């Protein structure tokens, strides 16, 4: 299987018009014996299992995203600095893919005390987002800050000025929950690239993508 992946990747590389995205995060080779032969496979880091609640008060777990490409970010509804521009840009991603049931956007609030489920629902309504394409996720501070590390995103408690510190990255995750790209959500040009990269990922053959 590992060999097959390499062959497929190699053939993908040979055709110039077929772009591929890198796989980010830590990786380690795993050697195992299959049918008496020694096979070396690469194991990529993936987003671990989680449990949050969305703006409709539905429980969202890793299973809810099985087989889906998704984009993750971190925000809070009262954010005065970068969040409005991030979500103005994210709205373009939403509009582009809202008809695709195999695509999701998840925005974790880093201020779960203020951003309760009803507050998140109101924010969604005011943003003009409906349906299940874009989930605003509420969870404990610990769970949210923990999963941020898996997305390689930096978030912190309130600083002495009472502001939350977080960076404005959008993280692209593939169907196998591997990180495939990070984009500055405050930069319209990078978000345009994100939209293009999602299309590349959607076109990626499942055989090559599967481990």
């Amino acid at each position, binding site marked *: 299987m590992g060999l097959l992946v390499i062959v497929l990747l190699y053939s993908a590389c040979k055709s110039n018009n077929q772009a591929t995205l890198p796989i980010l995060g830590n990786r380690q080779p795993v050697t195992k014996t299959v049918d008496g032969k020694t096979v070396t496979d690469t194991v990529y880091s993936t987003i671990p299992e989680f449990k949050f609640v969305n703006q409709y008060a539905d429980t969202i777990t890793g299973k809810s995203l099985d087989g889906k490409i998704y984009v993750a970010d971190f925000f809070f509804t009262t954010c*005065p*600095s*970068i969040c*409005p*521009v991030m979500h103005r840009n994210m*709205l373009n991603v939403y509009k582009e893919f809202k008809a695709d049931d195999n695509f999701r956007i998840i925005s974790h609030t880093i201020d779960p005390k203020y951003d309760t489920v009803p507050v998140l629902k109101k924010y969604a309504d*005011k*943003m*003009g987002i409906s349906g299940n394409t874009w989930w605003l996720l509420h969870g404990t501070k610990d769970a949210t800050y923990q999963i941020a590390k898996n997305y390689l995103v930096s978030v912190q408690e309130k600083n002495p000025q009472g502001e939350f510190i977080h960076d404005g990255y959008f993280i692209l995750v593939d169907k196998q929950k591997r990180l495939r790209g990070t984009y500055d959500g*405050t930069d319209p040009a990078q978000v345009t690239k994100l939209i293009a990269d999602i299309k590349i990922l959607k076109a990626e053959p499942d055989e090559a993508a599967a481990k």
Partner: protein
Amino acid sequence: MLVVLAVACQSDEQVEFNRYYSGGSLIYQTHCENCHGEKGEGLQALIPPLTDSVYLKNNKTSLACYLKNGLKGKIIINGHPFEGEMPATDLTPLEIAKVLTYVTNSFGNKAGIINVQLVEADLGKCR
């Protein structure tokens, strides 16, 4: 040559307006654009656009106080309700005058200069 002539023909008022307007454009980018947008378009029903010339005209003498102290509570912009909160700023009266001149003469607005004397007078009457 033409440009030089055009500049030379500008009145003192026009020169002052241009100075306020271009300075205000930079202040807008730093302090306002993230929320209100590059074209003053706002953000959906969350953040009001800056395109309601009638609102800006009717509240002209309060605008400086809104920028200094922030704005909270329900307002109607272009016929739509908004009820978020705009944070207070530490802009100086001159910076407020510049950015107000920029906003009230951009995005389809055309209110003329709001100079620092007007802003200082308005700030003295903040509620």
